[in-house]
Structure formats: structure tokens, C-alpha cells
């Protein structure tokens, strides 16, 4: 068995499991007033049943981003990449392409764009933050250009009435998510490549001195990230009735990064786990659900969500402040 997780990651995961259970209790407590016990249980069951479908795009994107962050890089353009996925899907749909082909376009677009980010970062040596900040604007613009040019009569959004185009996002999302998460975790625990991504984030110079091919290693992480983001994009797009590339997935990247960091991944690379990310996304999703039931004001919910993220990470840091200090000084 590999040294799967470091102690801080394991500790964070334990917090997230406990926190998720607490959030379920909060949701249940919010459902109880004005309903019978049986009714509340039934409504909680509905919430849980919809959970995999609703969080699938974010969870898949978060797993992809985790691999990228492990290498010491980051991708801030993932929301815009999803917009491009929406644009190519709309183009395929408007030209009556087969649904499978439309979904394949999504995968290819996301994989291609994220891999391009990787190439720019590693081969040209441009910092990931700069490349992907530029991508944030450029890919959103590209999505709008694509729909304006490639979708006849496009007037700001496109409605997709055919049910067949929504099957993956609506009916298969849970299964696709389960398989993809399983593959990621098995990949992490049994293959060398994820460990090398962590090694790259931990010490690029150590990897170089051991003769590893750094650009290839980093690009493989971006490719993996692109694949998972493409899969998430496919589910995201096929779960929408209306495709609007100008507003699709706005702020998505921040939510995904928050989940990854919550899951114990070091934002500077070298440490983390896919399972932690999965728990991070689950926790954030349940927190949002709990806030929907607990608060009417949308802005107050946003404020509480931010405070909750800060609270979990801050609480962990304060509780182990001495330990962090020692590590820093060692």
C-alpha cells in the first residue's frame, strides 16, 4: 500500500465526514417543521437522491483540478472552459449532430483547452496563474464567438427541448460520477503517475535531479484534468434546458477551488487526495442545501457559505497551530 495520505489530509477528511453528517442533521431539522416525521424523511430522501446528479459536474471538475494543483499549478479558466463546452454542444445540436457526437465535442473541447493551458505553462514557462487568468477571459470570448458564428439564428441562448440530449446529465449522472470517482481513487492508489504529480508539486528540483521529464509530467496532469472537466462539462451541459455561454458556469472555478482546498489539497501542490476532494465537494453541496432550507436571502446564503469555508479551514488551522508552527520552523 502506498503512503496514501499525509496526516493533515486524513484529519481534514475526518472533519469533512463529521461536518457532512452535521449538515444532513441541519437539513433534516429544517424539513421537520410543518411536516410529519415520515414526510420529512421522504423529503430528505429526495434531497439525497438528487445529490449525485446535482454535484456531479462540480465533483468531476474538482477531481480534475486536484491533479493539476498537485503539480504546483492551477487552472482558473475552468468555468470558461465549460462555457466552450456549452458552445460546441449548441453548435452540434443546431446542426442536428448525433447526441453522442455532441457529448464527444464537449469532452474534446475541454480536454484540448486544459491541455493547451498545460502546454503554455510548462513549455513556455508562463506561470499557471497568468495563463489561466488569460484563459478565463479568452475562452469565455471564444464560446460567444463560436455560438454567434456556428449556431444559426443564435439570440443569446439556445433551448434544447429534445430529451435524448439530456439523458447523461439527468439519468446517468449518478452512475457516471460513481465510476469516474472510483477510477480516480483506484488510479491514485495503484498507479505511479499521481504520485509523480505530487512529487512535482513537492519539489520540482528533486524531480529534475532524478531525471524525470517535467513538462511531460505536468502536461499529463493537465490532460487528466481536461478529461475530468470535459466529463463534468458534458454532464453540466446536458443537465441544462437552455444553453447561454455568456452566463454558463460563472464563478464555477472559485467554488471548485474551494472544494479542493477544503478536501485537504495544498494549494501550492505536493499534498492532497482525490477522496478528500470528493468529501470537500460533498460538504460544500450539503452546506448549500442546508442554507437553502435555513435562509431565504440568497445574498445571506452566499455570505454564510464563504464563512463556512473559512470556518472549517480556520478551525483546523487554529486547532493545530502549534503543529503548523513547528513544521514551518523545522
Amino acid at each position, binding site marked *: *500500500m*502506498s*503512503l496514501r495520505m*499525509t496526516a493533515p489530509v486524513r484529519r481534514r477528511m475526518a472533519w469533512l465526514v463529521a461536518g457532512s453528517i452535521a449538515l444532513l442533521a441541519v437539513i433534516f431539522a429544517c424539513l421537520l417543521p410543518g411536516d410529519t416525521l415520515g414526510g420529512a424523511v421522504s423529503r430528505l430522501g429526495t434531497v439525497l437522491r438528487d445529490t449525485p446528479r446535482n454535484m456531479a459536474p462540480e465533483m468531476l471538475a474538482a477531481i480534475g483540478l486536484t491533479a493539476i494543483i498537485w503539480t504546483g499549478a492551477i487552472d482558473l479558466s475552468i468555468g470558461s472552459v465549460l462555457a466552450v463546452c456549452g458552445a460546441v454542444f449548441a453548435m452540434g445540436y443546431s446542426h442536428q449532430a448525433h447526441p453522442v457526437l455532441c457529448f464527444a465535442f464537449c469532452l474534446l473541447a475541454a480536454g484540448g483547452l486544459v491541455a493547451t493551458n498545460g502546454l503554455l505553462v510548462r513549455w513556455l514557462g508562463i506561470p499557471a496563474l497568468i495563463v489561466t487568468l488569460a484563459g478565463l477571459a479568452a475562452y469565455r470570448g471564444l464560446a460567444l464567438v463560436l455560438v454567434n458564428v456556428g449556431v444559426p439564428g443564435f439570440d443569446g441562448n439556445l433551448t434544447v427541448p429534445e430529451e435524448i440530449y439530456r439523458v447523461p446529465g439527468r439519468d446517468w449522472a449518478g452512475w457516471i460520477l460513481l465510476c469516474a470517482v472510483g477510477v480516480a481513487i483506484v488510479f491514485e492508489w*495503484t*498507479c*505511479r503517475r499521481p*504520485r*509523480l504529480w*505530487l*512529487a512535482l508539486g*513537492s*519539489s520540482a*528540483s*528533486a*524531480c*529534475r*535531479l*532524478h*531525471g*524525470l521529464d517535467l513538462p511531460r509530467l505536468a502536461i499529463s496532469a493537465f490532460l487528466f484534468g481536461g478529461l475530468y472537466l470535459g466529463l463534468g462539462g458534458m454532464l453540466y451541459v446536458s443537465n441544462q434546458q437552455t444553453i447561454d455561454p455568456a452566463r454558463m458556469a460563472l464563478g464555477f472555478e472559485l467554488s471548485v477551488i474551494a472544494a479542493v482546498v477544503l478536501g485537504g489539497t495544498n494549494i501550492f501542490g*505536493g*499534498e492532497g487526495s482525490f477522496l478528500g476532494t470528493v468529501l470537500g465537494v460533498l460538504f460544500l453541496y450539503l452546506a448549500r442545501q442546508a442554507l437553502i432550507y435555513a435562509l431565504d436571502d440568497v445574498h445571506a446564503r452566499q455570505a454564510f457559505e464563504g464563512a463556512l469555508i473559512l470556518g472549517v479551514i480556520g478551525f483546523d488551522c487554529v486547532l493545530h497551530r*502549534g503543529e503548523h*508552527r*513547528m513544521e514551518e*520552523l523545522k
Partner: protein
Amino acid sequence: MSIESAERGTEGLFELSGVSRSFGGVVALQPTTLSLFPGEILGLVGENGAGKSTLIRLISGVLRPDSGEMSWRGRPVVLDSPRSAIDLGIATIHQELEYCGHLSVAENMMLGERWPRGWGGWVDWSAMHSLARSRLERAGCDVAVDIEFARLTAVEKQLVAIATSLSRDAGLLILDEPTASLAAPDARRLIEHLKTIRDSGVAILYVSHRLDEVLELSTRVAVLRDGKLVHVGDADELDGSELVEKMVGRPLQQVFPRTRIPSVSERGDPEVLLRVEGLTCEGMFEGVSLEVRSGEVVGLAGLVGAGRSELARAIYGLYPADSGSMQLLGHPWNPRSAWDALQAGLVYLPEERKRHGLVAEHDLASTLSIGIRDQLTRWGMVRSSHERDRVSGMISDYDIRCSGPNQAVGTLSGGNQQKVLLARWLERDPEVLVLDEPTRGVDVGAKAEIHSVVDRLAAAGHGVLLISSDLPEVVGMSDRVLVMNRGRLVAELSGDSQTQREVLQAAAGLVPGGEAGG
């Protein structure tokens, strides 16, 4: 075949022929011709900035030469990457080990190679751990392979790095200051290990500032000075002072100067500047009591991990103590931060100057002036002319060799970096100095200068707590030596009992006649 090879009548394992390298017009290594033979240890010495690192980086494929040729077993080779050197059989262990702290020991050992695979092509972790264990056993190293690499001690990290190199069938092993961060017994263990490796036919290029080690271990010694190879010869033909003379180009007399006359013990009862009583920091040190008096250099010796640096940091206010008390200049001392210590007249020179002492990219002027920033400002604004004057004064007072105050501090030699750190804090005119390994990785010339500064400070009435793993230094410089073992103060040695042998015995847990406590 080189001249050396022809003289020996055997072919060199690795040969450099007229290899040179410059950086932006500055010649770091003049055309150099040198051979390494199987089963020999070639000691490479020189002051900081003499070109040793450049030579190592050329041989290990990190740098490419501007001119000259290299050959491996008689065949010309081009080393254009670390990978090409590794593939050839050249393994380099750098002074500051590069490793992935969160990965396991086994993963770090096999970072650049194929990992054993099992069913379905997946990594066979148990086979990998067995392989790593067997490699460590072969190298005589007993370390768990499935723990985080960052958890290993300094000597364990070194031994793992050597075991890793040897497992790759290295024909040439390059070791850059391997004992710099090791205490004497650990260094001894490593040296004995290297002799075994040499006897197995591996060539070793051994780079160190510890000249006694170089002379003991090496078959031949090569000396670099100002980028030029000035001497290659048998180690038997040289003694320490001759070697130093070749390195610095002049005779060097005073390594441990003593101007503090009369010594502190002969001056009656000087004022106690720092008093520590029963200080405990759980898991690091326990019940430590000591005193540092005015005009006194108190040595603090012990093995790596004995708790010396942790104690120093607690005194400076970086670690909160769990119990015990401290007094500084006669007042209760409960520091909550480093700033408290600086304000109270206590300074600390950290063990790892690059990590904890300097920002390599900053220029010399800002590095020096940051220690006295409060003295340079008026109404919150820095007085530039005043800063310039103070910085120029510090550069000349402490003989910091640089191109000017705008030079990046990371580009200075190790000795000069250490002088910068000393100057930065001494400019505050502190009462007590805690110096943690002040001459580690510093060449002999700079070492003598640092010793001289410490001696002048003590002579001027300052109190110095000197932590050092360099036994001759800690014995030669100190008025008395306190020895720590496993977080406890186990001996106080002074007078006739203050010898390297006694210090070593106490550090190893074999407490001699000395009495612990301050």
C-alpha cells in the same frame, strides 16, 4: 588518455579535459583537466566561490561546459541533463538534499525509475517496499521505507540518498558537503560507510570544508582557487595547514582566536545576562538550566536532534515553553515573538541561513538594513541617505565581499552571507547572541573571520551562546561547553575537561565527570 591516466598506467573512469564555464562574462571555472579513477576518493576543496559547485554541476549534467571535453571509461560523452549523468552511472548528492517530503521513503528512492508492477500493471507496493528495504540494508541503513521522507533525521536522509545512488549502479558518486549538517558521531558513521563504498570499486568525489575529513578519507586531493585548479596530489603529502594555504593562497594562523584575557573565570563574578531555569518544551527538551554571563562564550554541543536548536528558538521566543522560567538582563523573560527578543537585546542567528535567515532575491542593502529598520525611519519614512551610510559602514566593518549594496544576497558566497546575517543583528548592539551553527558550510577564511567577530563580541562584554556541531570550534571558542543529549543537559565541561573527547562522550550519552546545569 589524460596525463594522470598515462602516469598511472590505467584508464580513468571519468575525465575532464580543458572544461570551463562562465556566467555572464564572469569565469566560474577556468579550463580544468582532472581524472577520477575507480576505487579512489578524490577530495575537492576550495573557498566558497572557488568553483567547486560549478565543477559538480558540470559533472552531474546540470550545467553544460563552454569548452572542453568529458569522457567516461575512455569514451567522449556529452552530459546535457541530470538524466544523462544518471544513466551513465554518475550520482550526485547535493549539500542541500532535494526530496519530496510528503512522499514515502521508498517513493523518493525510486522517483526516477520504473516501479515494480503487479496485477493489471498496477504498482506492487509490497514489492516496491521490499526492494527499497533491501537497497537500504545493502547500504547498511536501517530506515522505515513507508513513512514520509520529511520525518527522517538529517543523517538518515543522507544515508537514504547514498543508498539510492548506489542502487543505480553508480560508478562515480559525488558528495557535496555530506557531513555539513551532521553531528560528529553521525559524520563518523557516514565516513566509515564511504570507505566501504570506495573499497567496492566506486569512485567518489568528496567535497567538504572539513579538511580533517578530506585528508582522512581521500586518496588524492584537488584544490580549486578562484575558479582555477591549483593543486592535485596525494593526500598523504599534505597536512591541514598546507592545504589551507593552497586554498586561500596565504598562510592562515588564527582559527580560534583568543583575545579575551583574562578569561571569564578569572574575572570574578561577571553579570549574568541570560538565565534559564528548568525550561521544558514537551517533545523537544526538558528541564534545561543554564547561564550566559557577560563576556562569556558558552558552547552548546550535542548530536543532531538533541534539542539544541529548539532550545535556542525557545529562548528567542519562537517556541512557547511549557514550563520553567527565563531571565534576561536580570528581568523575567517571557518572549512572545522574535520582535520582543530584538527589542530586549537578544538576537538569534538561525541554523539554516538560506531558509530562515535570508531572502535570496533581496539586495544586500535591504537585507542589512531590515535589522535596524526602526533606527532608520522618521515619521514612518526610511531616511535613504542614513540607510546608505549605515549599510556602507556595515559592509566595510564586517568585510563583506560584494560588488556593492545592490548585489542580490543569494549570489554572495556562504561565508559572506553569514557575515551579512551577523552584521545585520550586531548593528543593533545586542547584549546576548544565540548563534546556531554560525560557520556551517563556510570556507576556512570566512570561518576564521566569524570566529574573530565572536571573540571580539565576548571581549566587549556581550554574552554568546554558541551552538555548533563542529567539535574543534565549540571546544576552541567556548569558555565552557554545555552538552545536550535527547533534550536534556547532561554535562558542563570547562578547563581541562573541555576536550573534544569528553564532549563527544557526553553527547553520545556516556556522561563524563562534568556537571550538568548552568
